């Protein structure tokens, strides 16, 4: 605690705390890799590791359908920062609503809201949030309580990671140098934690912090999988940043794989 931003010399002073320290649920460690990874390499890798197994053998395959006219995605011009402009795409498209070509909805976070009992081991494999091409990759992801989250800057420009949780402790840190990596943890479950970069205001990402590994994010096919479930009855929730949440109840037996469909409608 006393070495956070501390100067050891200041320790000689009489330190009278005011208001006491904040609970340290977002402990951080940052390091700077000597040779920065090529940006695209990391971006194409599955940025979000599959959640660790929950110990069961049942699974739920979720499809997220979309009804109605897909709203046009706003083009984000990258000329606000010359470093961003050098990225392959001159303009990116906003990820607020991404409707896939097969009529499904991308970036829907699906997770077990109720029904997951017991304790689940905290994975030591970190989840990764990468800033590449002045864009967060992935846009929506999940991780477990106290699972390390590696935040990586693959751009040769300043990014700040302004995390705005409400139950966890917020943080706002800068990564001025390409290749910088900061590791953070969230101590309490929370759906969702929003990340924002103030230097590139269009950048946003959402992370769900859960006590268990039963979650998935819908992909380019609108599919998400929740695996490793023990037999039981669960409340599944699907969360979308624009269209809000929906829930369904599903009961699975050991070894069973069920299919569930959510449908979001254009507003």
């Amino acid at each position, binding site marked *: 605690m006393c070495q956070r931003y501390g*100067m050891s010399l200041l320790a000689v002073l009489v330190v009278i705390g*005011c208001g006491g320290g904040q609970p340290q649920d977002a402990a951080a460690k*940052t*390091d700077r890799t000597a040779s920065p990874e090529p940006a695209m390499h990391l971006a194409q890798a599955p940025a979000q590791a599959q959640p660790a197994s929950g110990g069961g053998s049942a699974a739920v395959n979720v499809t997220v359908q979309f009804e109605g006219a897909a709203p046009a995605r706003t083009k984000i011009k990258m000329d606000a920062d010359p470093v961003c402009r050098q990225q392959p795409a001159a303009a990116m498209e906003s990820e607020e609503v991404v409707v896939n070509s097969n009529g499904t909805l991308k970036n829907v976070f699906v997770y077990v809201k109720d029904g997951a009992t017991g304790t689940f081991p905290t994975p030591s494999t970190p989840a990764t949030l990468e800033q590449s091409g002045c864009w967060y990759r992935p846009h929506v992801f999940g991780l477990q309580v106290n699972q390390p989250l590696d935040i990586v800057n693959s751009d040769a420009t300043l990014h700040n990671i302004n995390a705005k949780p409400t139950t966890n402790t917020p943080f706002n840190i800068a*990564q*001025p140098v390409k290749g910088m990596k900061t590791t953070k943890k969230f101590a309490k479950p929370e759906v969702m934690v929003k990340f924002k970069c103030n230097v590139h205001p269009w950048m946003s990402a959402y992370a769900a912090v859960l006590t268990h590994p039963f979650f998935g994010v819908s992909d380019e096919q609108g599919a998400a999988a929740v695996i490793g479930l023990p037999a039981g009855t669960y409340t599944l929730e699907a969360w979308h940043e624009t269209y809000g949440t929906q829930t369904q109840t599903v009961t699975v037996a050991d070894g069973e794989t069920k299919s569930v469909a959510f449908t979001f409608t254009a507003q």
Partner: protein
Amino acid sequence: MSTQAHGHSGTQAPSFLRKYIFSTDHKTIGIQFLFTSLIMLFIGGLLAMLIRWQLGWPGRALPFMEKLAPEGMPGGVMLPEYYNMLFTMHGSIMIFFAIIPLLVGVFGNYLIPLKIGAPDMAFPRLNMVSYWLVPPAIGIVCAGFFLQGGAAASGWTAYAPLSTTLGPGQVCWIVGVIVLGTSSIMGSVNYLTTVINLRAPGMHFFRLPLSIWALFITAVLVVLATPVLASALILLLLDSTLGTNFFLPAGMIVDGVLQPNSGGQAILWQHLFWFYSHPAVYIMILPAMGIASEILPVFARKPLFGYHSMVYAIMGIAGLGFLVWAHHMFTSGMNPALGTSFMASTMVIAVPSAIKTFNWLGTLWRGSIRFTTPMLHAIAFVAMFVIGGLTGIFAAANAVDLYLHDTYFIVGHLHYVLFGGSLFGIFAGITFWFPKMFGRMMSETLGKVHFALTFVFFNAVMFPMFNLGVAGMPRRIYDYTQYAHLTHVVGMNQMMSISAFILFTAQLLFIVNFFWSLFRGRPAGANPWQANTLEWITPSPPPHGNFATTPTVYHGPYEYSVPGRPKDWLPQTEPAAIPSHS
């Protein structure tokens, strides 16, 4: 004189705790202030070295710092938020915990009773409280370094709304500065009462030494200005913690979220802050002027040139000092007509400053100058204050300030005033009164080497700042190299940084000299400098109660080289016919 009756002589020998820790003796309190604020001066200097590291070599790792500040400098690479904390804390520590306590706390406490012939302050217990509020204030302000989100990072000016959006470190800063302000007000009430009521017989106001005049007027400034700062800070604290909107206007959108504010006014903070902080500039320079005015006659062996005009100039500066605050705000968006009036008042305040400078020169004219260490520092004070003052005219001319405001030109200007002015004045004062405080002389050799290195490398660090400012380098910038018009200033910044490291290292000589002389210095005797004022008639260090008998004062403090006398000094207590003033 009735308040003197609370009997200092004849009391029992006080316990260790009463004598050295919770002492009510103004001399002990002055020395407590001295040690506390010298430590803070050292820490503030360390922070400046980190700032200079980043400015000289932006983004280069400083590996050992990873251990000391793992969040601020991961892998030894400084982060922008840490840089903001560093210059905020450097400014805050230097102003609130080093320069103001050194000038007002140390010299005010130590010198006022001794120089007016009083046994102690009018309110010794209040005086003790005013010191004992300082360590908690330091602790609270610096505690931010150990809290989530780090220390205050909105500059020593803490401009709202930025200062209301930062974490607990900023709140600590606000609370700590309020505590310090309380201490300053208590100290100053005490100084005023003491000077008004406890002067020795014959010590008319116009026989007071200039240092006492300066401290007296400074105390008036503190008493009138600091409550305004305290009120403003309380409003800021409420805005930061309880959701009031004194400084937060409607329609603010922070991080994309519309804030539920209404009715606040961001510029109001600046008016309130500078209504204190411009007088605070004079709080930080008037006592140094007083010290220089005190030391120059002693070592020129000559009366101070224009004693009365010096006193009126101090009053003029202090009075006008309340009418110039918005010259810090020419680009703030206030009405341009205000810009005109504050430009005009600022031009006027240059006149008394000019008078003082010319009078110091007049004091040296046809003197018999002894180049002792305190004298060298006092001369440097005059030479450097000239630069600080003249560069102020650029900033006062608001049309030019539109360009120079918030650039390194201002940083250079304020360092010429606060380091070149205040700090050289402080070094002059410490080296001059050290023999009185501790009964031993400081080493002249070490003192002169320290002076020479400090003088040379201070200029090597600070003078190029004017060039950087003219070249358009903004202050408070973590990495200036990304701006096209600043790519060619890296070399100059490196030269400045190296000079800064040497400047800092040279201060170790002062520390060595200080502690070596404390134990091994040559015994000083009562009046080693052959000076006139009352503190030199009593032994060094003075006993509890200061004077064996209350001194009687017969004339002014600067009667040096009076014709027809064998010795070239004339203590204020020695009756003598002196020639009428020409």
